[in-house]
């Protein structure tokens, strides 16, 4: 039975961004949080290293330096006023989390502990600074748990295991969403004056990734299919240190505590690439350094293949540091590699980690394409692009983004719904989704999702990875187009109604395919190297032409590209060295 329900606001996603927005919005607006996972299973819980804020608990620090580092780290594609808000509000955000009970690690004087992290500096780049506030190497777990606990305390209304499959718009005004309920297999229509998408990352486009299996970019893909352009999708971050072959993340905090990268000759190769920041240079640079070593035959296997690896050595830090500061990393290494990091180096390779791009928003979370502002439609967290991360996100800045911009969106929603009128939406609005489901279910024989998924992930990893060039990216786009056709032949095997997760996985694959196409096309279009987008055929940054955001609209199997200006109102773009 179709359920039609009405709310003031719907928050899609119960990770850090969604939960914080919900806490704010639900103070005055009738708010529903819908999530395909139980909230506590969201991938925010996997974040390890910390949340950046210039508290200055260990040494002198300032929000201005934090904002500058964010802009420079993002290779000047960051909207600078947004970065300023991020850095200034970060301090309040961290205290707020602590005051809500978050168990940060502590300094001897009882204040919140802070560690060094990549690209975070004092005095505009003079040297590394202790800015990352952490709870051992499970900061994200603590944030997710604390925010969920606060939602329990405040009686926030949750719809767990409801997957949003469609967005309802009237022109450029939001009306609600269509959801698939896992338990019953029913489609429902939730009507609302405001809808926030906080659906998290898209890392499952790639073969080797730190992202959860459920990080399938549902929000961006649903909005893209509704004709909303996606911003800067070519900027996808490869974190330098994923566990070999699995992609499981080894936090930059390991290097923050003194861990170093070594090639097959035992050389501390970051000395060549970033003489000041060394292993704590920003991620795009460290990932490129690793790939350069690998391609020069100095990877550990030495076969120059892109899946060769290097060592991350923390064995000199001593057992106490390893067990106290990075206990979970030690556990992962023992479980998956049989390696004890207090004794032996860890084999690492770049792993697909974070989408800098996504749903374009203004500083209040409103979906804003630069040409149109969608009424009542919001996005926050990794799914959104404010843009505070530009061409390359600094470590610890995503967790800040969730809290700062999740809160701002939640507040704006609470105000907005007071004066907005109730939209119309009814059972018939589920028709499009129902027809799609029917087609899947009626198809006889048909393909499994596995081979299509694997092929997409391989193509994206090989051709739209750390180093890129025209031919390859075009080939990737062509391959993905073919896979999208093959996808039309996928059939459901599970014809049961309740707890049919197969249907949902098929829809997730469709989302990933759409985003892969947008990513490959956006990447092929940008003929320069900037931040995480690094081209062999165009190795230089080109501010003259490319100091602008990509806005990519999906039209059938074509991607139409437009642009939006970058806010450079505070710091003038400079060459980026560390």
């Amino acid at each position: 039975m179709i359920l039609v329900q009405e709310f003031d606001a719907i928050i899609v996603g119960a990770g850090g961004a969604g939960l914080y927005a919900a806490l704010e919005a639900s103070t005055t607006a009738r708010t529903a949080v819908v999530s395909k996972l139980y909230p506590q299973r969201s991938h925010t819980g996997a974040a390890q290293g910390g949340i950046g804020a210039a508290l200055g608990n260990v040494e002198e620090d300032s929000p201005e330096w934090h904002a500058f580092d964010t802009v420079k780290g993002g290779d000047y594609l960051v909207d600078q006023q947004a970065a300023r808000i991020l850095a200034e509000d970060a301090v309040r955000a961290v205290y707020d989390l602590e005051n809500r009970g978050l168990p940060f690690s502590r300094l001897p004087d009882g204040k919140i502990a802070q560690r060094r992290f990549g690209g975070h500096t004092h005095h505009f780049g003079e040297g590394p600074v202790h800015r990352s506030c952490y709870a051992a190497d499970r900061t994200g777990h603590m944030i997710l748990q604390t925010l969920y606990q606060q939602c329990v305390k405040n009686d926030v209304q949750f719809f767990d295991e409801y997957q949003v499959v469609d967005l309802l718009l009237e022109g450029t005004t939001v009306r609600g969403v269509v959801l698939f309920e896992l338990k019953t297999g029913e489609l429902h229509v939730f009507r609302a004056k405001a809808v926030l998408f906080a659906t998290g990352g898209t890392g499952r486009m790639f073969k080797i990734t730190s992202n959860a299996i459920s990080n399938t970019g549902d929000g961006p893909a649903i909005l893209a299919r509704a004709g909303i352009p996606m911003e800067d999708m070519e900027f996808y971050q490869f974190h330098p240190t994923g566990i070999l072959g699995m992609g499981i993340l080894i936090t930059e905090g390991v290097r923050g505590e003194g861990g170093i990268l070594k090639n097959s000759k035992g050389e501390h190769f970051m000395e060549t690439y970033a003489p000041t920041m060394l292993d704590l240079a920003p991620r795009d640079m460290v990932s490129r350094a690793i790939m350069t070593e690998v391609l020069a035959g100095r990877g550990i296997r030495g076969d120059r293949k892109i899946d060769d690896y290097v060592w991350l050595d923390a064995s000199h830090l001593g057992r106490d540091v390893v067990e106290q500061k990075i206990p979970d990393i030690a556990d992962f290494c023992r479980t998956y590699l049989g390696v004890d990091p207090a004794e032996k180096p860890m084999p690492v390779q770049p792993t697909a980690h974070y989408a800098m791009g996504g749903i374009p928003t203004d500083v209040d979370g409103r979906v804003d394409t630069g040409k149109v502002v969608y009424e009542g439609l919001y996005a926050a967290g990794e799914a959104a692009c404010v843009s505070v991360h530009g061409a390359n996100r600094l470590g610890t800045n995503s967790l800040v983004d969730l809290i700062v911009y999740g809160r701002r969106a939640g507040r704006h929603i609470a105000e907005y719904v007071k004066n907005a009128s109730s939209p119309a939406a009814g059972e018939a609005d589920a028709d499009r989704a129902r027809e799609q489901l029917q087609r899947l279910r009626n198809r006889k024989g048909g393909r499994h999702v596995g081979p299509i998924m694997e092929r997409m992930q391989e193509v994206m990893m090989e051709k739209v990875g750390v180093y890129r060039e025209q031919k390859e990216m075009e080939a990737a786009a062509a391959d993905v187009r073919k896979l999208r056709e093959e996808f039309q032949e996928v059939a459901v095997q599970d014809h049961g109604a309740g707890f049919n997760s197969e249907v949902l996985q098929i829809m997730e694959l469709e989302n990933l395919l759409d985003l892969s196409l947008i990513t490959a096309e956006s990447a092929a279009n940008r003929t320069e190297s900037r931040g995480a987008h690094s081209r062999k055929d165009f190795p230089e940054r080109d501010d003259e032409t490319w100091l602008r955001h990509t806005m990519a609209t999906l039209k059938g199997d074509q991607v139409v590209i437009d642009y939006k200006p970058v806010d450079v109102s505070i710091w003038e773009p400079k060459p980026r060295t560390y």
Partner: protein
Amino acid sequence: MNVTLAIKRFNPETDSEPRIQNYTVEVQPTDRILDALINITQNQDGTLGYRRSCAHGVCGSDAMRINGKEKLACKTLFQDLVDQNPETGNAAAAPATIEIEPLRHMAVQKDLMVDQGPFFAKFRAVKPYFVPAAATPERGEYIQSPEERELFDEATKCINCAACYSACPILDKNPDFIGPQAIVNAARFIFDSRDAGLEPRLDVLDTKDGVWPCESHFECTRVCPRDIKITKLINFTKREIKKYRAARGEETAEQK
């Protein structure tokens, strides 16, 4: 190597009782059990039901019984279960069979998916959120020494996977027992120097279905994938309640 997964399946829409279905999969010794389950659903049989997300032991989605013990499918490798030739690293001659069943003490929704509703309701009952002991600082953090912080560290690690809840022998005979995970999450706050502690949670903990049914069988501690010393935390909590009641000349629910 080839392994057989003998999976206990049940779909209430079509089955009157559970059945065992065998799947043969080719795996590497270093593959996770979860990798094999994904392989089955994506390439062999899309109808198999289970939950998963993070794939590295931090989200708590995929606790199940593997060869009779509660484990996370994503944190258990085939080499941990299958006898191997120590020289070649290959599986011993006969293909290994690994038994997989859903968690206990929760109703099966489908195959390896169980209804965690009651489990989470017990969690919510212990007020698993910060109840500040003092007014919020005007600016800045509550001060807490590293030693004070250490006191409740272990309890903060819980990922709510319900492995302990399934392994607990007390829940066999008393389904109303709030269970190990709820107590761990209460202890998380009771031993936090910033929190009002025991008092707001007594009405749930100091009852006949609260902490007292626990008989220290240590099954929870044995299976916890986060290595939380659960039984110890339960005993600390009991001791705290006794101290609290004794100081007021009251009896605990156990003594009543």
